[in-house]
């Protein structure tokens, strides 16, 4: 019910927020498009006029067209200055020179994307019109699009797959400078503007979701939880707590009303059996809220994700030429550092509090990110990446501990799904923002932006994350009874459990065959090799758009696939199929290149999308599968997760290293294929193993059946224990 209302409210708010934004973006692009053509016209006119003036001047000074030398480089230079110009030619009517052709126009000099097509275009144009001096070409201001569309026969001509507009500018009595405007440039620019705007809208929507979630949690969810809690306490005569009142709003006023009533009752009634605090002063409730960590966490992940499309290229500045292995090593320094702190971060978070560890992590990452700006060599960039990684690991671990503490004990998986959704939202928005920024304002400003975002994350951590653990996570539970209670000295792990889990062969098989390869593909393939391949023929923005395919697949498919997996069970099959599909996806680009021909950005996008679908199949299911095969019960899930994350990090660390080693021998496309094949093989092996030996021990299965027969269900037990003594 609550979930439904929250979804409805958020969707309504989102629609209200996004609709004007989308409309504004649409109008902006329309305005941009209306200015685009005149701008290209101006640019082209300027370039043509400059070339024309130069030729006129040379002819005037040196006495005639025969004095012209080195015209082609000047044409090439003009075309590079004004990319809209697809051809430049100097022509004269046929017969002006003894070696004239049969056609009506003789071309003295030409520079074009495709000179042969350009030549025939110009010659064809020359036969269409009536003007004897220079027939057929559009005269005067060429670039009035409507006029040109109305005059396709005389104004434009096909240039391969694209339309070409031609204009003749007189140089002298018998000489013309012919310029061709490539209309496909217009389409490319428009397409790019639409894509960039779409990406920005999506990024803004994701950020808006985080902010709205926080607002909703602060103003609706938390007061609602407090009302549920306090009414449950009142029902059993428990007067030890009151609801903290801050700010305004109806919910706050209602809470104040309840608190005032409780205070009045407490003063007047001393009925036997009522619960009063020991020192006769009630204390405010410490209520849980998973949503409060979302914004700081989103900002933190966003900062690292912003760097994603530029990172391999940026790190290349600090290495020797073609030192792909060195790039891999630098990237691995981040992962190695996070590997250490992700493990110890959870222990420290339990001991010193999530807020302190999150803040410390953000501070370390801030220092590391700022270090990217000042790095002057291999050593300093490795130090900067290591610091960023240390902070990343701490924040990652602290956030998971926070969610474990604040999520409702019966819906903990939902809590962790919020963690995943925040991570993916940042991974979608970050590369898009970073890619566009890199193309438009440069890498330095991307780094400054990422550093500023970490500072915001640290600030949000201080403002939003509570110093105290919640009293209980379920509002109907009673503090002090141990049900859904998070004591201040809460610890999730026990060291002996770690060794127990590591002796479980199914656990090890799952880690080796599925978890580690999946992470290796992610860091070595998606984050390292794919950007390298894209940057060979396109910019950082294209790289970001391709990476978005992965994020979209995860964001939209993982909740659906995870719920299906929960319903149908058979986790090993889901995880294995995900690994197999991911591997096949990364083998696609190179296979395509060998079998079909040149692989394009579209093929890379499809590969990334398929990889995302594979990971959406396997990643969320991996955790359920792990808890199932670890046989340690829900109370050990923290330890299971800790060990899993540690092992997973090893995979993340090895990914770029392995990719770097492969790059020493092969191209990035081939290296990607080999990574994919290795994942395919390990996933197939893992699936075979689990099909052969089963997902659980027989003893455990039998014990589970017996338990279900004895126990009547957790809800009844909770209700019984929640009654006051």
């Amino acid at each position, binding site marked *: 019910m609550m979930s439904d209302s929250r979804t409805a409210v958020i969707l309504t708010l989102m629609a209200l927020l996004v609709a004007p934004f989308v409309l504004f973006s649409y109008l902006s692009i329309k305005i941009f498009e209306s200015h685009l053509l005149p701008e290209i016209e101006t640019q082209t006119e300027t370039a043509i006029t400059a070339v024309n003036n130069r030729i006129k001047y040379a002819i005037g000074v040196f006495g005639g067209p025969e004095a012209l030398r*080195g015209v082609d480089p000047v044409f090439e230079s003009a075309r590079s200055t004004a990319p809209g110009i697809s051809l430049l030619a100097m022509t004269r009517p046929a017969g002006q020179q003894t070696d004239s052709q049969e056609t009506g126009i003789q071309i003295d000099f030409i520079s074009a994307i495709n000179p042969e097509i350009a030549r025939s275009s110009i010659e064809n144009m020359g036969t269409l019109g009536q003007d004897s001096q220079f027939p057929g070409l559009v005269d005067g201001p060429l670039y009035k699009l409507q006029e040109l569309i109305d005059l396709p026969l005389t104004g434009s001509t096909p240039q391969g797959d694209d339309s070409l507009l031609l204009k003749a500018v007189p140089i002298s009595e018998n000489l013309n400078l012919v310029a061709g405007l490539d209309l496909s440039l217009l389409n490319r620019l428009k397409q790019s503007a639409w894509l960039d705007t779409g990406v920005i809208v999506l990024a803004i929507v994701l950020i808006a979701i985080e902010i709205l979630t926080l607002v909703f949690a602060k103003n609706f969810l938390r007061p609602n939880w407090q009302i549920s809690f306090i009414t449950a306490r009142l029902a059993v005569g428990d007067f030890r707590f009151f609801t903290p009142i801050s700010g305004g709003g109806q919910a706050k006023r209602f809470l104040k009303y309840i608190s005032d009533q409780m205070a009045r009752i407490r003063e007047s009634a001393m009925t036997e059996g009522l619960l009063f605090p020991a020192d006769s002063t009630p204390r405010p409730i410490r209520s849980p809220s998973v949503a409060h960590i979302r914004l700081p966490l989103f900002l933190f992940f966003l900062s690292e994700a912003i760097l994603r499309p530029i990172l391999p290229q940026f790190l290349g500045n600090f290495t020797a030429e073609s030192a792909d292995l060195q790039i891999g090593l630098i990237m691995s320094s981040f992962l190695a550092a996070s590997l250490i702190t992700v493990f110890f971060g959870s222990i420290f978070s339990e001991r010193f509090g999530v807020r302190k560890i999150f803040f410390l992590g953000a501070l370390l990452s801030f220092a590391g990110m700022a270090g990217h700006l000042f790095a002057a060599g291999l050593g300093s960039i490795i130090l900067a990446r290591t610091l960023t990684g240390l902070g990343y690991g701490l924040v990652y671990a602290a956030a998971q501990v926070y969610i474990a503490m604040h999520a409702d004990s019966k819906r903990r998986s939902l809590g962790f799904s919020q963690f995943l959704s925040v991570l993916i939202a940042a991974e979608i928005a970050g590369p898009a923002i970073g890619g566009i920024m890199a193309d438009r304002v440069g890498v330095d400003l991307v780094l400054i932006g990422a550093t500023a975002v970490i500072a915001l994350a640290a600030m949000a951590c201080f403002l939003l994350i509570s110093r105290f653990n919640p009293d209980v996570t379920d509002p109907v539970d009673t503090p002090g009874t141990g049900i859904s209670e998070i004591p201040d000295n809460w610890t999730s792990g026990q060291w002996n459990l770690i060794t127990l889990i590591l002796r479980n062969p199914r656990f090890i098989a799952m880690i080796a065959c599925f978890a580690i390869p999946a992470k290796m593909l992610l860091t070595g393939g998606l984050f390292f090799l794919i950007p390298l391949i894209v940057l060979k023929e396109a910019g950082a923005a294209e790289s970001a758009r391709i990476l978005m395919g992965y994020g979209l697949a995860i964001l939209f498919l993982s909740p659906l696939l995870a719920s299906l997996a929960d319903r149908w069970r058979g986790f090993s099959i889901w995880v294995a199929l995900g690994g197999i599909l991911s591997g096949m996806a990364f083998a696609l680009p190179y296979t395509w290149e060998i079998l079909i021909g040149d692989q394009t950005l579209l093929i890379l996008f499809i590969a990334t999308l398929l990889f995302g679908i594979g990971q959406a199949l396997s990643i969320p299911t991996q955790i359920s599968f792990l808890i199932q095969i670890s046989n340690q019960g829900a109370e050990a899930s923290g330890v299971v997760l800790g060990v899993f994350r540690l092992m997973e990090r090893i995979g993340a660390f090895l990914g770029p290293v392995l990719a770097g080693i492969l790059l020493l021998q092969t191209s990035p496309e081939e290296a990607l294929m080999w990574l994919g094949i290795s994942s395919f093989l390990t996933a197939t092996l893992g699936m075979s193993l689990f099909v052969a030996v089963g997902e659980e021990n027989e003893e455990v299965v039998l014990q589970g059946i017996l338990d279900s027969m004895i126990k009547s269900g957790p809800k009844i037990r909770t209700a019984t224990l929640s009654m006051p003594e």
Partner: protein
Amino acid sequence: MHATVKMYLAIVLIGCSLLTGTAWAEKTVFMVLWRGETRVEEGFRAYFAETSHDLNIIVRSVDRDKSRLPAIIEEIKSVQPDLVYTWGTSVTLGIAGQDPSLSNLKHPSQLTDIPIVFTMVSQPVKSGVVRAFGPTGRNVSGVSHIVPVESQLNAMQAYMPIDRIAVIFTPTESNSVLATEQLVSHGNRQNIRVDTFPVPLDDEGNPRPDSLPSLVYLVSQGGPQFLYLGPDSFIAENVSDITDQANQYGLPSFAATEIMLTRSDALYGLVAKYNEVGRFTASKVEQILFEGKAASEVPVEVLPEFSYQIRADVARSLKIYPNLFLMDYAEIINR
């Protein structure tokens, strides 16, 4: 600010200025020239005319006779100017001398207590006036007017591709010999063959003007694409005849100095404009006299900007036309 405080500050500032004499005191520059005032000095005077600095300029010319230098040096010592300005390599070597750290010092410095700023020294390092471009560490600074040889070769290539050039030089002029050596050296690096033709000398060791026609003919028969006219006083005096004859043989000329271009029918050149050399020299004098810098701190430099000049009439008559892109920045001259 309180009026009394303002007045006090004004008095202090004026007092300091009078005591130090930095703002209003007239400075004396003693110019020693090689052949009278040129466009370099025009540029020098124009520079200071645009400033508020008062400059008293004393001009002396040796009129191409180095034997007059000792008397001028005596006069400098008696006048005690604030700065000495020397024009050309010979005058500069005669007054500022060579850097004392050189092993085989032929020209010791005649003045050490007065700052010296030289101009129009084509090879200040090779001639030993300074050890290197940049601050000299002694009471000397100055400006060189010769475009670096590498830039000159690039300029030639910009006009049209070349792989062979010829140079006529006077073997008794050290500047010319050094420039020719540099040209050969850089030409080798860029795969450009440089044929060198020294001017024959008479019995007294002076270059023979009458030998030039046959020498130019000899050069043209060798098949070079250009004749290089470097910093050479003898060639400069006869440059008009040399280029006329070369043009008759269809051999275009490239000039390394402005005077070669203005006096002859050389096709083109990359040159430091004398007027600009004078202004650049004046900026160095200004730093020393009015900005309190020591001459030893002010770097010796080559003029940072050069002029690419093409003679359109010569190009037309020779039918040798430049690349179109040169129209963007070349100075086209028609006579």
